[in-house]
């Protein structure tokens, strides 16, 4: 900030120009590291060029700290920042628990905490709570997400074609993998931060319970939604410039959100799909139409599940392979279900040998049943955090969740490390 003040006074640059320079610099860095190869690929495709790809290594967490720095710059310009200590600023940008995969933190909720004297003392209550939240995150990642990861990878990356049930297993596996992976990481970040008496913002609140797409984005990656709203949607005009402009702003915001997630057309499509869904939802509300909550949930969940296919697929071909299987694949019913629903045979469905790709149908069925119960009916980690007490039950839960550490043999990275 001192540097900015010096530049401001010596070079007589207006705050707006300084802001523009700051944002451009951050975006250029992000563009260079994250999107250069994507740009070259598309340039080559359109102009039949032969420019070799640069294969630039992506600096860890660049997408996250770019957002945080831009937010700080914008708020400084708006004169909404109060904290200018350089050490605190660097700590805010590089705070290790959340650095690599969020939650995306705002300077106004982080920097004041660094100066609170009380936070520099050992706080056993926070340590107990932090260990509980951390162990829960570990469990979500190691036990649940990594189990579904295997099935998702089989369907997306190994199989060349999928029958209908395999395709649904593949897409649902990824839907659950992503949620438990990312929210598990967030829980771990929140837990570790608590060991230092730092409170990180909530990032997930049972997103798959959402009964419409707007509610989903209030529950999923909450800090990203907040950032997109504050620093893209509102500056674009938000809902202040008429209905058509509101729809355009909504769509543009989510399109940019998609591009932020990764350099590829699949991310663009994913962002566009969510943008469109939000536009449709808003129009639906404006028309005063209503839908029973259950149908709303079904529609929302299946839309999200389908959109994740684009998010996960390595390329469009792979996404279309899964989608083709989901809607036009051969229908085979597991023998277990065929026994109970004899009518399916009369409908021409084949019973038994439902998959060459996946193993025991009973084992998989139980896993899917368990995660549906967890995501729809059990309290989420933030609700459990509120209920936490230093009693025997929570100690037992912490110890049980911590046992996941003995099952780390399925080595896998956190999905959001890539973003």
């Amino acid at each position, binding site marked *: 900030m001192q540097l900015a003040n010096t530049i401001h006074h010596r070079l007589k640059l207006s705050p707006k120009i300084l802001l523009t320079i700051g944002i451009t610099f951050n975006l250029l860095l992000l563009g260079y590291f994250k999107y250069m190869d994507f740009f070259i690929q598309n340039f080559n495709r359109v102009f039949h060029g032969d420019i070799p790809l640069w294969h630039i290594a992506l600096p860890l967490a660049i997408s996250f700290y770019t957002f945080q720095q831009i937010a700080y710059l914008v708020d400084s310009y708006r004169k909404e920042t109060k904290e200018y200590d350089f050490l605190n600023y660097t700590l805010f940008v590089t705070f290790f628990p959340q650095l690599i995969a969020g939650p995306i933190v705002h300077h106004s909720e982080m920097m004041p905490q660094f100066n609170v004297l009380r936070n520099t003392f050992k706080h*056993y209550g926070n*340590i107990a709570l932090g260990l509980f939240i951390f162990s829960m995150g570990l469990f979500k990642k190691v036990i649940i997400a990594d189990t579904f990861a295997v099935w998702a990878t089989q369907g997306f990356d190994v199989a060349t074609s999928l029958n209908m049930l395999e395709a649904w297993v593949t897409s649902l596996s990824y839907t659950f993998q992503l949620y438990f992976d990312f929210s598990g990481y967030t829980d771990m970040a929140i837990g570790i931060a608590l060991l230092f008496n730092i409170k990180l913002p909530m990032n997930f609140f049972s997103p798959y319970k959402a009964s419409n797409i707007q509610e989903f984005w209030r529950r999923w990656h909450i800090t990203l939604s907040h950032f997109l709203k504050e620093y893209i949607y509102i500056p674009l005009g938000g809902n202040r410039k008429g209905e058509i402009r509101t729809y355009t702003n909504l769509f543009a915001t989510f399109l940019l959100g998609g591009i932020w997630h990764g350099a590829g057309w699949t991310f663009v499509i994913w962002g566009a799909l969510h943008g469109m869904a939000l536009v449709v939802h808003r129009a639906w509300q404006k028309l005063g139409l209503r839908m029973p909550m259950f149908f709303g949930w079904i529609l929302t969940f299946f839309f999200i599940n389908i959109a994740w296919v684009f998010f996960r697929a390595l390329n469009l071909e792979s996404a279309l392979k899964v989608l083709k299987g989901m809607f036009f694949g051969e229908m085979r019913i597991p023998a277990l279900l065929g026994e109970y629903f004899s009518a399916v045979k009369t409908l021409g469905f084949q019973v038994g040998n439902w998959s060459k790709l996946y193993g025991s149908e009973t084992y998989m069925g139980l896993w899917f049943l368990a995660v549906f119960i967890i995501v729809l009916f059990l309290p989420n980690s933030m609700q459990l955090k509120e209920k936490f007490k230093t009693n025997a039950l929570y100690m037992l839960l912490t110890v049980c969740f*911590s046992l996941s550490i*003995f*099952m780390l*043999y399925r080595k896998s990275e956190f999905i959001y490390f890539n973003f």
Partner: protein
Amino acid sequence: MFQAKTYIKLLFFFFFLLAMISVGYVYDFSKKYPLPITNRISLDAKLMFIKNKINPDEIDTLIVGSSIGLNNVLGSVLEEASSKVKHAINLSVYEATTLEVEQLLKLADAFPNLKRIIYSTQYSDFPHAKKYQDFHPKLYRKYMRNELSLSKAFKVYFNACNNLLFCYERAKSWEEKHMKDDQFTYLGFDHTGSVPLEIYRKEKVKGGRWSAPHPGIMHGESFAAVHRMSKQAAQKGIKFYLAHQHYREPLVKKYPKVEGALNYFDRKIEKIFQETHGVLIALQRVHLSDDYHADRSHLNRKGATIISKEIAKVIERTESKE
């Protein structure tokens, strides 16, 4: 409800207890079963075998390959049949591709008195150009030689603790899966680390494993790996033999593509060895009926004994001239 400080103390007591139990379990496990150090059970088992039973300084002959190396060459027969081979060790790993064998050969430095390497292979090992991920030859060499520092040994055991469920599953299936010599997953080593199979024709190996030939696809990168391996061996003064193993004769007769693949393979290797001074041992010329085969490309104990004697003869012939 506990005081927060008491709660933390109790919690850490339980964590400590869990850590101790897991360390105890892993220690006990490591006495009976191979620790998960690599991502191949047959390599884990081999590292443990060498660590516990072999004096690496005595080894003069190294056998490498996939199961074609593990099953088809018996180190004990080589030791008996050749005056040159005093102490052999079979370092082959199930399903190893040529590039993976090249990685395995990085472990050869653990044997300072090595005189020859025998790469036992078949054209069917050559279609893939994949490598081991997380392969740490320096660590494995030290582990085999019992030369791990305390911190490295701690790391090995600590990683195994992270794999506790994996260890449990390995222990549970070990006897059933790896201790029966009538199964292709057998890991009961002879004193040289070879695995003689007791699978005979009468047991009717089912399906394509017996009757369908491998496709004749061979990856150029695999031949390049043979070039590098033989060249490096020559530079170190180690003789490099490639034993091109026997394929079921009825399949060679029935499918011209198999014969074509065998001939193509031999021609390619001969060309490489003209430059690197390796020795090709083409074993298809040895007549072996189906009684000697466990499947289309794997030999049973009887077959492996005959083939090992053939290899011993070539070693004698080659090294007596030098």
